[in-house]
């Protein structure tokens, strides 16, 4: 570590400023772009309340909620990944390891399979039932994994990962069995859901997700010093005087809650949870007090960019945002991997 402290501080500030500016730019670009392109002047007019009725409808009812959702989901998933990589002491961990992807995916596919074509799937309520099913599935899987890893009052990182692998495989297997029995149209829907897509172009979803993000992310940042310690190893954490079981449990719960809420409206986009913390760490070092805010902004920016691109690139068809995240994020991630030690 030959970086001086002030240099690190400056780096952190520069990174936060750049990502914030990029998010604002992306925000306007995202309102502007889409199936119907709205010129920038009209975008600004509409935001100031002076736009045409048509533009107001497009922007306020469709694009704005989606943009905000993309930002929130991106932040939530990335923070969840950062927590998991910390507490499991494993750089490969992402929210998918806790069964959140496969649990939610299994619940959604089960729901699609049993209620295909009925009014249940097409009725007005259905847009809320699907996320609810996903949320329940995500939590069920996470609780199952934690319960099985629990032994004599302790949950070690290695056991958590191993049990996670097992439960994940079980849910994925169930997923395959039902998926293969599906009608082609439902099958396509399931694939798109599993690939990750922000479907809730609706203020209700934004309101539902908002409290999770705005309570849990500051809480995580408040807890960041525990993450610093937990990431080292159990004996070190104990000798520093941390009640590791308790802190680990709290952080794990936060991580599951964040990822579960995000996956329920965003589908399987956990790759973001893997790369956003790594990007932050490779850019500004190892302190979680700095990594976490940077991770949140990077995650939000990545998901918003990916969602915008996914809407535009094959319009009027939409590319699931999870795929765009990988196609955009992986090369940059690889570049960072090659460049840094």
């Amino acid at each position, binding site marked *: 570590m030959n970086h001086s402290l002030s240099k690190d501080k400056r780096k952190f500030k520069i990174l936060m400023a750049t990502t914030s500016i990029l998010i604002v730019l992306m925000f306007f670009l995202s309102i502007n772009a889409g199936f119907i392109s709205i010129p920038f002047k009209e975008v600004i007019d509409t935001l100031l309340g002076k736009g045409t009725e048509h533009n107001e409808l497009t922007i306020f009812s469709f694009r704005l909620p989606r943009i905000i959702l993309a930002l929130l989901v991106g932040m939530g998933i990335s923070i969840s990944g950062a927590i998991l990589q910390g507490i499991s002491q494993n750089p490969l961990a992402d929210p998918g390891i806790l069964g959140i992807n496969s649990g939610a995916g299994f619940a959604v596919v089960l729901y699609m399979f049993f209620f295909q074509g009925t009014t249940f799937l097409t009725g007005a309520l259905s847009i809320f039932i699907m996320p609810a099913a996903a949320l329940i599935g995500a939590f069920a899987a996470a609780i199952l994994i934690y319960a099985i890893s629990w032994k004599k009052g302790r949950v070690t990182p290695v056991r958590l990962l191993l049990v996670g692998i097992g439960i994940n495989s079980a849910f994925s*297997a*169930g997923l395959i069995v039902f998926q293969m029995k599906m009608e082609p149209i439902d099958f396509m829907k399931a694939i798109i859901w599993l690939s990750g897509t922000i479907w809730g172009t609706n203020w209700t979803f934004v309101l539902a997700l908002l409290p999770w993000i705005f309570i849990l992310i500051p809480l995580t940042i408040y807890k960041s010093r525990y993450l610093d310690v937990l990431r080292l190893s159990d004996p070190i954490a104990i000798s520093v005087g941390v009640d590791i079981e308790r802190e680990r449990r709290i952080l794990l719960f936060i991580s599951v809650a964040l990822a579960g809420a995000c996956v329920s409206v965003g589908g399987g986009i956990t790759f973001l949870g893997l790369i956003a913390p790594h990007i932050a760490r490779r850019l500004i070092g190892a302190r979680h007090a700095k990594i976490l805010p940077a991770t949140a902004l990077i995650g939000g920016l990545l998901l918003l960019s990916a969602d915008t691109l996914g809407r535009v690139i094959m319009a009027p*068809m939409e590319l699931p945002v999870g795929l765009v995240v990988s196609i955009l994020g992986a090369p940059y991630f690889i570049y960072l991997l090659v460049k840094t030690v």
Partner: protein
Amino acid sequence: MPKNTQNELHSNYLIGTIILIGGGVLLFFTMISSIHFGAADLSFKSVWEAIFSYDGDKSSHVIVRELRLPRALAAVTVGAALAVAGAIMQGMTRNPLASPSIMGVTAGSSFLIAIAFAIFPAISYTGLISFSFLGAALGTILVFGISSLSKGGITPVKLALAGSAITSLLSSLSTAIGIRFNVSKDISYWYAGGVSAVQMEQLMYVAPFVLAGLILAIILSRSISILSLGEDIAKGLGQNTGVVKFLGTITVLFLTGAAVSVAGMIGFVGLVIPHIARFLVGVDYRWIIPCSAVLGGLLLLVADIASRLLNAPFETPVGAVTAIIGVPFFLYLARKEGREL
């Protein structure tokens, strides 16, 4: 060496020997029953005759030679290949989350398969196998190339991270191709296909690769045990870690490439069998690798029989069955105290 450790070592070797001999015998009898069970029940006598005194006019003999025997052989070959590849991966990367798919092998194969389906819809089965193998090589070269190009050279973490980045990138691209060209269901069927439609000719096509891979794996097993202690220790003991990693990667490519080309994506075996073998025989890869081969072959063979019987006359995807059989056992082992990586 403390006495109890020595005792433990002896008991590990004993368990290992039992697994190899008992597993071999079990494998033989399971193969016979695999040939015996199916839509048309054949007597054990005609199975025997079909193998040792073949008569092309009898329909039962044709069924055995053309359908059942290749299928049973394929299950054993694929299971053994995947399990050994997984063991090598986990040993080289020292990460419990590493599986053959993380080297970009399966993702690379699925990427080229997606391209093949999109561009040449009428491609033959053998053509698909060639594409799959090419893709597997492409994925591996990318992952290995990136991690060796990076500053500081190949480290286990970097290999794993580059692997998951490339995997995510390539599989996203293939899903995108699937959605764009409307071939996702074809791709999924190819990957969930299992060993049901394997013909002798295809098996002969990949057999040399599997054989070469297995021999290489056994030759390398000693070096991998040393490498699994950690890079520094391995170098300290005079190992040329770069060469071992390169050869290990080639072995993984041969084994997984062949398995994926024949049977599609069967995830659970490569990830979990090495763990099970390690739980049973300890940390010595000279034992883990052969035991993984036997256990992997056995698991896939049993799973393949079950996939025929569970929902007869329909077939359940074999990848799902391996998970259903393997998960409870795996969870039990994961909870058992005392064994680390």
